[in-house]
C-alpha cells in the first residue's frame, strides 16, 4: 500500500460516514416522534420531552457508559442484535451509529418539532378539506413548509455527531478504519506530541465544517429570497 502521507484521511472519512448515516437515520426516526410530540395532548408529554432532551445535559461518558452496557453481548440491545444474526455491537461501526443516534437525538428532534409546532394545524386542516388524505397532506404540505426546521436538524445533527468524542471512546474504542474517528485521531496525535498531524486533521475538519455550514446557510438564504 502506497503511503499518501494523509494519515488523517481514513479517520476523516469514517467520521463523515458516521455523521451521515446517523443523521439520515435520525431524520427518518425523528419525524414521527417530533410530529407526535408537536400534536399530542397527552399529560405525559413533558416527560417524553425531558427524555428526548437528556443527551443535552448528560456528560457523553455517562451516555457512553450506559450504551456500552446496553450494546454489549449481555446487554438488551446487543443480545437482540446478535440474536438477529448481527456481530457484536460494541467496538463496531453499527454500535457507534446507534450510540450516536442517542447522543444527537435532541439536536434533530427539537428543530423539527419546533417547525411542526410553529406551523400549527391550519395548513394541515386546509389540505384535508381540499381532499388530501392525512398522510398525503403531511408530505405535500407539512413537510415542505417545515424545510427550515429540517435543514437546521440536518446541520446540527451532522455537526454534533462529527464532533463527538466521549461516547465514541467508550463504545467504539480506537480501532483504525473501524471506529477510530477524527476526534480520537486528533487526540492520539496530541498525546504523542505529533502536533503537525494534529494540525493537519484539525484544520481539515475546520475547513470542511465551514464549507458545509456555509453551503447550508447559502441554500437557506436563497430559499428565503425565493419564497
Amino acid at each position, binding site marked *: 500500500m502506497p503511503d499518501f502521507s494523509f494519515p488523517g484521511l481514513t479517520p476523516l472519512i469514517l467520521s463523515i460516514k458516521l455523521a451521515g448515516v446517523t443523521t439520515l437515520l435520525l431524520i427518518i426516526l425523528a419525524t414521527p416522534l417530533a410530529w407526535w410530540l408537536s400534536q399530542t395532548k397527552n399529560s405525559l408529554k413533558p416527560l417524553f420531552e425531558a427524555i428526548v432532551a437528556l443527551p443535552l445535559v448528560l456528560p457523553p461518558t455517562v451516555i457512553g457508559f450506559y450504551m456500552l452496557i446496553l450494546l454489549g453481548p449481555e446487554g438488551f440491545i446487543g443480545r437482540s442484535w446478535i440474536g438477529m444474526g448481527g456481530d457484536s455491537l460494541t467496538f463496531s461501526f453499527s454500535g457507534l451509529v446507534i450510540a450516536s443516534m442517542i447522543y444527537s437525538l435532541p439536536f434533530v428532534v427539537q428543530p423539527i418539532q419546533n417547525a411542526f409546532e410553529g406551523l400549527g394545524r*391550519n*395548513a394541515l*386542516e*386546509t*389540505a*384535508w*378539506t*381540499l*381532499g*388530501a*388524505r*392525512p398522510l*398525503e*397532506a403531511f408530505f*405535500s*404540505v407539512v413537510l*415542505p*413548509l417545515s*424545510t427550515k426546521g429540517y435543514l437546521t436538524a440536518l446541520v446540527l445533527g451532522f455537526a454534533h455527531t462529527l464532533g463527538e468524542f466521549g461516547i465514541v471512546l467508550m463504545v467504539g474504542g480506537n480501532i483504525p478504519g473501524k471506529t477510530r474517528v477524527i476526534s480520537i485521531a486528533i487526540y492520539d496525535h496530541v498525546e504523542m506530541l505529533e502536533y503537525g498531524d494534529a494540525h493537519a486533521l484539525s484544520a481539515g475538519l475546520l475547513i470542511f465544517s465551514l464549507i458545509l455550514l456555509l453551503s447550508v446557510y447559502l441554500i437557506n438564504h436563497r430559499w428565503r429570497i425565493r*419564497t
Partner: protein
Amino acid sequence: MTASDITIEFSYPGFDLEASFPLPAKGISGLFGPSGAGKTTLIRCLAGLERPARAHINVGGRIWQSDDIFLAPHERRLGLVFQDVRLFNHLSVRKNLLYGYDRTAPEDRKIRMEDVLNMLDLAPLLDKRPEKLSGGEGQRVAIGRALLTSPALLLMDEPLAALGEQHKKDILPYLKKLPREFGIPLLYVSHNFEEMASLADYMVCLNRGRIQAQGNWQDVATQLPDILDRWAPDNVIYGEISAPGRFKLSDGQVITIPAAVTSPRLVLNARDISLLHSPPGNYAGDALLTGTIMDITQLDRDKNIVRISLAGQDIHVVLGPRGVDQPWISVGQDIHMMINRIRGEVE
C-alpha cells in the same frame, strides 16, 4: 340537486351547540350570528374537523355523518374558504388552485379550471407566489381553489372580515354570481349585517349555540328587529396594544381598555356605543372616537343600523327613530362616538 339537512350537537366546557336546520339546494344561504355564537364550531363540525357527539349531516343527498357514519374531512365534498385565506406559501398560485382539483376524482370534476380563471379573473395571478398577492387577490385564489374541488357545498367563513373596504367591494360581485354560475349552493357565514343583507337568499340565525330564526331572507328580515333586539350586533375591531390599557387603531386613535386585555381584537357591542354630535365641553376621556357614517339601514319603524367607518373598519350602531331624525346623522358625516362598555378578549 337535493337540499341539505344538518343537525349538530356538540359540547365542550362552557359551551353547548345544538343546531338543526335545512339548507336550500341552490343560492346563497347565510349563517348569521354574533361572535361567540358557535359559528366556527358549527363549521368545523360540518367539515369533519371536529367530531360532534351526535350529528346528522346530509348534504345534497350524501350522508357525511350519522349515528354510524363519520366521513373524514377529505371524504366530504365540501369547499371551505377561511377568513385567514390559508394559501400554501410553498406553492405558486397555479399549484394552489390545482391542489384540490388534482385530488378530486376525475368523474367528480364538474368545474373547469378555465371557467374559474375567467370568473374570478385569476389568469394574471397564476405564476405568482401567494405572499405577493393582495388580501383581495389571495381570497379570490382561495375561493377558486375550493371551487375546483367541485364541492357539493361551498362554505365561506367570514371571507371578507380580514379585507379592507375596497377589497370587500371588489369581491362581493364575484360572490353574488358564484352559485348561479357553477350551480353550487353557498353557505356564507358572517356577523356582518350588510354582507348578509346584500348576499343571502336564505338565513339561519345562530346565537349562543341555538338557532334563533331561519327561513327565506324576507321572512327572517321581518323577525330581525326582534332578533337584533336580543343581540345587537357585536363589532370586532382590530388594532394594537400600544401600552397596557391602550388600544391603538391604525389611524392613531386610542381606546382606553382594561389592562388585562392583551388581544389586538376588541369586541364592541352595538348597544354600547353612543353617537354624539360634538364632544361634551369638559369631556376628557379617551373613549371618544371619531368615524364617518357610511350608510344607514332601516330595519323597521323603531330601529336603524348605522354603519360607521372607524379607522377603515366597519362598526355598527343601533339607533332608534329619534336618533336618525337628527340632521347630523347622515351618510358621509363625521361623527363622534362614546364607548360605554368594552368587552375585550383576554388571551
